[in-house]
């Protein structure tokens, strides 16, 4: 999709806190033909869930194009490289290399945080495996893995000026695409992407803007205050508070659609990544109202 020059749409599928494959397959049906690819989170917010590789494999079997999210929080370099080979063998063709939320936030705060590699080193390891057929240390692979490699960027974390440097570094390490943190502060986002354009970075990787529909003013406040690296302007919260309770979800969708429409006009943005957290059923409506349906078909 991205290489064809179209405006890409991706969504997110959170695996269940359980072993039932039907939960994943049900989400797959909600997203089928609505998006080009589906990210599968890797124990996000450090809460134990079904493994991302397994859920990606289920999606792949159901005919969707999964994006395997992998965090360096839980696996050392042996496990990461091994899982990369396994995922490629299962036909998974996209990987998003992440640090991972610190385990203190999840339901296993006593866990050992691994962080053997950092996310940038991990991107580089996957690129070397793919392009040179070598693992860390130089041993050769009988067959290299085949991946479109992604990384995350947060335009809203501090210090602001450093954000673009870090983005450039991830792309230099080998990221083919970038998915950003949820965007609510479009002015700040446009300043960030402007800085990236000035450095010529937006030509070197496909950048997808992240969006998350809000369900309530409470969710907005929670994200603003409790989720690290989130920037939700007060106008957004006021807008959510300004509608009756039964209209709040609709208002959240409105904001999300407007954000996507504005992002479509931002030079350097090649698509959107819709993270509807445990609200996958709304993705189709958002994509449709943003004027992005039907999705083009590729072989």
């Amino acid at each position, binding site marked *: 999709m991205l290489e064809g020059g179209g405006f890409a749409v991706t969504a997110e599928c959170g695996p269940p806190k359980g072993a039932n494959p039907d939960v994943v397959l049900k989400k797959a049906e909600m997203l089928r033909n609505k998006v080009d690819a589906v990210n599968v989170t890797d124990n996000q917010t450090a809460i134990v869930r079904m493994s991302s590789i397994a859920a990606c494999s289920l999606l792949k079997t159901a005919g969707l194009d999964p994006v395997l999210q992998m965090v360096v929080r839980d696996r050392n*370099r042996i496990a990461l490289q091994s899982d990369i080979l396994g995922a490629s063998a299962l036909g998974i063709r996209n990987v998003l290399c992440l640090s991972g939320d*610190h385990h*203190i936030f999840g339901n296993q705060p006593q866990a050992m945080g691994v962080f*053997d*590699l950092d996310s*940038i*080193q991990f991107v*580089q*390891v996957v690129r070397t495996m793919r392009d040179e057929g070598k693992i*860390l240390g130089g041993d050769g692979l009988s067959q290299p893995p085949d991946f479109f490699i992604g990384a995350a960027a947060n335009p809203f*974390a*501090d*210090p602001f000026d*450093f954000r673009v*440097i*870090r983005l*450039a*570094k991830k792309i*230099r*390490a080998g990221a083919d695409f970038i998915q950003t943190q949820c965007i609510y502060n479009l002015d700040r986002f446009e300043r960030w992407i402007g800085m990236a354009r000035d450095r010529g970075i937006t030509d070197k990787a496909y950048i997808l803007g992240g969006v998350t529909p809000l369900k309530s003013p409470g969710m907005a406040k929670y994200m603003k205050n409790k989720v*690290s*690296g989130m920037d939700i302007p007060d106008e957004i919260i006021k807008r959510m508070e300004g509608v009756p309770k039964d209209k709040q979800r609709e208002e959240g969708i409105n904001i999300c659609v407007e954000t996507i429409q504005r992002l479509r006009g931002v030079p350097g943005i090649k698509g959107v990544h819709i993270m509807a957290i445990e609200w996958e059923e709304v993705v189709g409506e958002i994509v449709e109202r943003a004027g992005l349906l039907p999705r083009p078909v590729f072989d």
Partner: protein
Amino acid sequence: MDGRCEINPDVECAWHMIVDRLTKFGALDRLENIYPPKDWSRKQGGGPRKIVREDQQK
């Protein structure tokens, strides 16, 4: 966020301090380098450690 650590707001953000300090030194470009993975072989489960004190050798 705002210069505080996301794990514990009582602590300053180490990365924020690093970036501020390197900016002050005019050396922020050092962070543009991609550093190789760390060698952990001498840490924790690396087994018994051995130090050769060359000054003690005959």
